[in-house]
């Protein structure tokens, strides 16, 4: 009855085709608008962030080439001040601080990424299901996140680390444990807003199954906010990891973790280089992550894009 195919020739002949719409009311066929570039988000700062991060990335990858000494070896006297031989001085075991900072980037940066990625994966999945399925699944997940929120993160991480012993893996697990609820909530609220959206309704009315709709309509639209959050959280992950390490609950010695390096010098600030320099390393890395997070937010956040 309303078989479209029977009404139009299957292959319109070029030149004589009059599009139906044009025939009806004389309009030209609609074409997509030329793509407008997204508003360039504070380019200069983003450039700074990228330069710093790429710098750290190079340092991490080329650590053996850059580091003048073995980061674990006693290459000088204990606590020697910055000198030509040791640009950043040596630590309590006479290890070269520059080398340790260089190798430390191989630890802090990937671990921060791991923390964020795991938390995003776990929190995101749970939030997605909670928001989409709703009802008791949602209710119980929200109570669980409340529970984690109601616990001071550093204490929770400390108990976990204390329970399973200090190690990089346990520190990551502890920090994932305290940070997944944020992602769950963000994804959930994004899913909730999509659950009421017309395009999801339209999909379902077309006969798209619920799980297919979850994959095609809900998932791609709800990752945005969590990606923004994740990029903003990267810096925070570096800081949290350093805090745990500072308390002796991070990667095991003699690993050159930046937070642990600060702790080593914290007892005696007259040897300022031992803790001040790793602190600056953390600061630059976190600053770059934060700047990048801001840039990602400006780029992905629908609100700022709509303005652009």
């Amino acid at each position, binding site marked *: 009855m309303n078989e479209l195919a029977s009404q139009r020739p299957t292959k319109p002949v070029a030149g004589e085709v009059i599009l139906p719409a044009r025939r009806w009311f004389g309009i030209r066929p609609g074409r997509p608008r030329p793509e407008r570039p997204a508003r360039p988000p504070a380019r200069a700062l983003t450039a700074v962030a990228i330069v710093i991060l790429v710098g750290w990335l190079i340092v991490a990858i080329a650590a053996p080439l850059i580091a003048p000494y073995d980061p*674990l*070896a*006693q290459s000088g006297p*204990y*606590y020697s001040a910055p000198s030509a031989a040791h640009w950043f001085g040596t630590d*309590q*075991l006479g290890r070269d601080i520059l080398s340790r900072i260089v190798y430390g980037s191989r630890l802090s940066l990937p671990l921060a990424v791991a923390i964020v990625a795991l938390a995003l994966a776990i929190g995101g999945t749970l939030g997605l299901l909670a928001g989409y399925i709703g009802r008791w699944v949602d209710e119980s997940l929200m109570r669980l996140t409340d529970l984690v929120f109601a616990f001071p993160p550093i204490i929770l991480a400390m108990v976990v*680390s*204390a*329970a399973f*012993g*200090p190690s990089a893996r346990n520190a990551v697990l502890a920090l994932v444990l305290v940070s997944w609820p944020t992602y769950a909530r963000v994804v959930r609220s994004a899913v909730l807003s999509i659950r009421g959206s017309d395009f999801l309704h339209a999909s379902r009315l077309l006969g798209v199954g619920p799980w297919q709709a979850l994959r095609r309509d809900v998932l791609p639209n709800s990752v945005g906010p969590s990606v923004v959050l994740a990029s903003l959280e990267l810096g925070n992950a570096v800081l949290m990891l350093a805090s745990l390490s500072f308390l*002796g*609950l991070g990667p*095991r*010695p*003699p690993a050159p973790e930046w937070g642990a390096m600060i*702790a*080593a010098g*914290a*007892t*005696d*600030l*007259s040897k300022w280089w031992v803790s001040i320099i790793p602190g600056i390393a953390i600061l630059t890395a976190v600053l770059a992550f934060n700047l990048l997070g801001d840039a990602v937010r400006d780029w992905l956040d629908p609100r700022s894009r709509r303005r652009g």
Partner: protein
Amino acid sequence: MPGSARRGTHTTLALLAAATLALAGCGSNAEDNAAAAGTAATADGSAAATLTVDASLVVKTLDPGQVYEPTGNVLVHALYDTLVTFDGADISKPVPSLAKSYTAADDGKKFTFELNPDAVFADGTPVTSADVVFSLNRLKNLKGSASPIVKDLSVDAPDPHTVVVTSSTLNPNVPTILAEPYAGILNSKLAKENGGTDAADASSTDKLTNYLNTNAAGSGPYLIESFDAASRIVLKANPKYWGTAPKFGRVVFQNMDVQNQKLTMSKLPQNELALDLAGDALTGLPKELQQSGSADSYYQLRLQNDPAVSKVTSNADWVAALQAAIDYQGVAALFGPAGKPAAGIVPTAYAGSLPESEAQKQDLPKAKELLAKSGVGDQSVKLLYPAITFGGVDLGTIAAKVQSDAEKAGIKIELDPAPIASFLDQRKGGKVPFSFSPQLLDYPVAASIVADLMPGGHTAEAAGWTAERADKETVAAAEKVLSARDSADQVEALHDWQRLMINNSPYITLVYNSTTVVAGPNLKDAVFSAAGWTVDVADIGTN
């Protein structure tokens, strides 16, 4: 409505600010004013002056029956007198305290103490033998940390001024044990009034501890003014003290981490001393400060002797290789001026320590040779240690040093830090191949460690060092130490034993470290004592 509420808030804030200024400006308090001007006024060392002790306060209780933590011992020693005591830094011989004299029986088991009739508790009641019996029985029955030490002792009071302590085994060290803070004598009447008991079931029925945290029930030179383990503990002089009155009327123990202690002491404060400066924190201190210390702790690697647990650590050649690989002088340097490379096992503070000339030395060629001989190759072993800072040095640093020294000889070690609870728990089980920890003596006699380290002792058991595996000669040397009745004999025996232990035991002692008392330039007699209470605050005066 919300608008008016907001205006209201402005007004309230303003009023509050005004009130603050008024109160702060107009009020006054004579004591505070004196205190504010205090530093100058008390520089002459008048009796009302305050002594400040900076320490990372590690104290759970001021009950002598329960105390075992470092700061707790300092405090309890100032609050409670014991039968005998040690004078200043000299721990070679107990001196009279509540007991004006004592005699030891020839069998080395029975000790008779004669109480000083002048001794009175802070409430004025005289100290009697009943109080001593109560205190020591309570200590035993509380089943606290100190009770294993006194387990073998029994106490009798033939008359009010005589106490007889009998040990079930030969033990020439009973007077030393009874000089320790946990053997402090309580006012038994006061104690019983406040829930104290010395009954056999005291561990569950005694309710005295909470009372003792705020009230001293002893006869010591000081009383408790306030007790807050988190921030400060204040002692005040006991006005009815029967002995020589303390120089400082008030002693404030304030909780301060090491870094702060160093910064504080660097400012050369008057009437102040710090207890936790150790390791590298001791370097770079102003010369004006007085430092007093003596190596009282030893840091030891323990290797599992049971091949069923570890084929590597039970390999004598591998152990010897490791022993030769370690840079003892370098490890000692990590402890700053207070560290000494280990010669034997007994730290230098105690009689029986081997002379410094015998200190261990690194010998890498020998280590490599031994490693090759052992056939272990580069198989790696996990080194378990507690993730704490002890004696001013992070144990991770020492472990890392050992690791890198071993590496130079080709010996592979993996570090395995653990929270203290889990460290102790694991090591107790006897399944740990390789561990590392600092050790202190239970009481200031070197022989106290011998039994524990030898087969049959708990440590040896945990290290899988059984009588079958042990070298006969070494065992005999240990037995000689324990059966010595004379201290000169004992010292001789200790030397022999330690020399044998170096090559025939599953232990590698790395270093000795001392606790150091750092005191302001104007203080006098702020000396470290290895007796167990670090420093006797009642002795401290001013120049």
